[in-house]
C-alpha cells in the first residue's frame, strides 16, 4: 500500500464528503468555463451576425445601385453640345457658352439617323444688361423648343418653345419688377408680353428671361447662331457616353459634347446615402452587441470570483471537517511512525484528487451549459471553435492547486498534531 492508495481508499470510504468537495470544484470550474464559453459563443455569434449583415448590405447596395442604373437608363443622359472652340473653363465660369455655332447644326442632327439622342433643344444664351430696367444684369435665353427628328415618329415634346413677342421670367425678375402674367414690358427696345412666371428655383434660372430664339438672336446680334444644343434623355447600349459622343461627332465634327453632371451626381449620391444607411445599421448592431457583451462581462466580473471564492471556502470547510473527523486516524498514523510531511501529503493529495476530478467534470459540464445557454447553435463546428484548450489546461492545473491551497491550513493543523493528545482524547 502507498500513501496514494490510502488517499483513494479514504476518499472512497468518505464518498459523500468527497463528492461534496468535487461538487465545489465542479461549481467553481463549471461557472467559470460556462461564462467564458457564453462570452466566446457571444463573440462568435457577433462575428456571424455582422458578417451576415455586411453581406446583406452588400447585396442590398448592389440591388439599389442596379435600380438606380435602371432608373437612370430610363431617364437617359443629358448632354450638352457646344461649339468646338469653346473653352470649358469659360463655360463653367460664365454659366453658358461664350462661343457660338450655326443654328443649322441642329437641323443636321435632327436629319441624321442617330438613335441615341431623343430630344434636341437649341438655344442661345448670353448675359446682358437690361437698359429699360436700370441696366440690371440678366441672362437672356432664346429657345425654339424641341426640334423633332425628321426620320422618326414625332414624340411628345418635353419642352415647349416660347412664342415670339412672349417672355418667360425667372423668379427674381418678376418679383422685383412686380410683374405678372399678361403684363407688357420692354427689353432692348422690343415689346414683350409676360407669358409665364417661374417659381423660385434657387439657381441662375431666377435671373433668366426666356424668349423666342429668333428674336433673341436679333437682340444680341447673332442671327442664325446658337451656342448650345441640349440633348435630353439620350440612350445607348450599355449607357456608354463615349458611343453617343462618337455618333454626334460623326454628324457634327466641329462640336464637343459634355455630359451634364446631374446624372453622375445623383447616382453617386444615392450610392453614398445607401452606404451611409447601411453603415449606420451595421454600427448600431455592433454597438448593441458590444453593449450586450459588456453586460454579460460586468455580471461575470463579480459573479465568477464570488462563486470561486465561495467554493474555496467550501472546500476549506470540508477539509477542516475532514481533519476533525480523522483525528484518531491522524494520531495512529503519526504514532505508527508517519512523518508530518506524509500526514500533510495525505490531506493535500486528497485536495488535489478532488481538484482534478472536479475540474475535469466541471470543464465538461460548464462547457455544455455554456453551449446550451450561449447563442450559437449546437453542432460539431461550434463545439470545435468554442472549445478552448488553453482554458482547459489552465483550469486543470489551477483547480487542484486552489483546492490544495484551500485545504492547506487544515492539513497543516493535522500534520502538527501531537499523536498522544489525539489518542488520549479519543
Amino acid at each position, binding site marked *: *500500500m*502507498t*500513501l496514494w*492508495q*490510502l488517499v483513494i*481508499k*479514504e476518499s*472512497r*470510504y*468518505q464518498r459523500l464528503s468527497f463528492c461534496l468537495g468535487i461538487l465545489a470544484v465542479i461549481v467553481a470550474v463549471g461557472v467559470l468555463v460556462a461564462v467564458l464559453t457564453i462570452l466566446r459563443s457571444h463573440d462568435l455569434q457577433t462575428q456571424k451576425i455582422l458578417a451576415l449583415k455586411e453581406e446583406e448590405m452588400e447585396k442590398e447596395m448592389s440591388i439599389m445601385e442596379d435600380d438606380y442604373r435602371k432608373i437612370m437608363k430610363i431617364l437617359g443622359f443629358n448632354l450638352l453640345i457646344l461649339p468646338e472652340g469653346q473653352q470649358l473653363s469659360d463655360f463653367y465660369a460664365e454659366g453658358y457658352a461664350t462661343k457660338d455655332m450655326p443654328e443649322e447644326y441642329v437641323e443636321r442632327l435632327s436629319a441624321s439617323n442617330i438613335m441615341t439622342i431623343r430630344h434636341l433643344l437649341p438655344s442661345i444664351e448670353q448675359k446682358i444688361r437690361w437698359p429699360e430696367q436700370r441696366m440690371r444684369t440678366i441672362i437672356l435665353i432664346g429657345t425654339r423648343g424641341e426640334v423633332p427628328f425628321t426620320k422618326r415618329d414625332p414624340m411628345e415634346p418635353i419642352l415647349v418653345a416660347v412664342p415670339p413677342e412672349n417672355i418667360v421670367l425667372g423668379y427674381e425678375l418678376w418679383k422685383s419688377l412686380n410683374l405678372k402674367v399678361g403684363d407688357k414690358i420692354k427689353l432692348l427696345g422690343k415689346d414683350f408680353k409676360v407669358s409665364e412666371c417661374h417659381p423660385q428655383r434657387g439657381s441662375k434660372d431666377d435671373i433668366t428671361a426666356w424668349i423666342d430664339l429668333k428674336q433673341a438672336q436679333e437682340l444680341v446680334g447673332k442671327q442664325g447662331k446658337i451656342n448650345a444644343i441640349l440633348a435630353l434623355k439620350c440612350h445607348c447600349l450599355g449607357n456608354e457616353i463615349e458611343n453617343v459622343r462618337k455618333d454626334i461627332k460623326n454628324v457634327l465634327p466641329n462640336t464637343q459634347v459634355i455630359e451634364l453632371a446631374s446624372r453622375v451626381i445623383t447616382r453617386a449620391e444615392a450610392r453614398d446615402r445607401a452606404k451611409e444607411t447601411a453603415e449606420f445599421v451595421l454600427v448600431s448592431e455592433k454597438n448593441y452587441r458590444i453593449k450586450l457583451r459588456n453586460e454579460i462581462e460586468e455580471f461575470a466580473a463579480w459573479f465568477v470570483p464570488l462563486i470561486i471564492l465561495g467554493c474555496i471556502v467550501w472546500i476549506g470547510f470540508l477539509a477542516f471537517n475532514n481533519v476533525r473527523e480523522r483525528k*484518531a*486516524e491522524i*494520531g*495512529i*498514523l*503519526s*504514532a*505508527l*511512525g*508517519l*512523518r*508530518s*510531511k*506524509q500526514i500533510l501529503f495525505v490531506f493535500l493529495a486528497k485536495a488535489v484528487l478532488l481538484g482534478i476530478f472536479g475540474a475535469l467534470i466541471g470543464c465538461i459540464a460548464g462547457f455544455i451549459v455554456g453551449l446550451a445557454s450561449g447563442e450559437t447553435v449546437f453542432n460539431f463546428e461550434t463545439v470545435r471553435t468554442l472549445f478552448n484548450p488553453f482554458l482547459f489546461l489552465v483550469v486543470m492545473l489551477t483547480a487542484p492547486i486552489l483546492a490544495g491551497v484551500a485545504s492547506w491550513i487544515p492539513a497543516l493543523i493535522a500534520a502538527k498534531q501531537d*499523536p*498522544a493528545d489525539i*489518542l*488520549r482524547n*479519543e
Partner: protein
Amino acid sequence: MLFIKNLSKVFKGPKGIVQALESVSLSVKASEFVAVQGPSGSGKTTLLLSVGGLLVPSDGEVTVDNQNPYLMSPDNRAHFRASTIGFAFQQFYLVPYLSVLDNVLVPSLAFPQSIAIDRAKELINRFNLTDRIGHVPGELSTGERQRTAMARALLNNPKLLLADEPVGNLDNENANIVLSVLEEFASSSGAVLMVTHDNRAAKYAHKTLQLKNGKLL
C-alpha cells in the same frame, strides 16, 4: 532494551493536577516478557505512551535501544517509533476504511520503499485472520480487531513491543492466541512490555509488576 529511571508524569488540567506516574523505574531486556498489572486509572496507559515516545515525561529518563526518544526531533522520533517500537493500543485504533491487510500494512508507510506484503500475510495467518483479510474493521469482532492491531504492531519487526490491555476485552480463546504470540515474540529475542488489569496475562509473562496510583509496588 528498555530502561526507565524515576519516570514521573503530571497532568495539569482544568480540574487540577493529576500525578499519573510517580518515580517509576523498570527495565525490560531483549527476549523478556514483562507484565505490569494494575487497576483502571493506575497510570498503565500513561506509562506505555511515555515509554513509546508519544508522551513527554514530566521528569525522569526513558532509554529505548540505547536512545532517548525525547531528545530527537519529532520527525526523527516518528521514524524511531516506526523502526524500533511496536504498539498495540487499548482501543486498537484501526483505520476504519482499510481492510485487515491494509491496516496491518500501515506501519510500512513510514518506509516508502518497503515491500511488506509477504510479512503482513504471514502475520495475518499467524493470528488466524486469513479469511478476514479483505474486511474492514467495522465488519470484525472485537477479538479480530485486537488480533489485527497485534499483527500491525509486529509488522516492522520491532525490538520492543508495547501492548496496552491486549486481552482485556477478549474471551479465553482469543486471549490465548494473543498471549502466545507475545510469548513467541519474546522468545525470538524481542522485548515485550504489557500492561493489563487482567489476571490471565500473568501466567504468560516472565515477570509481573504491580502498579497502583502511579507507583510500582
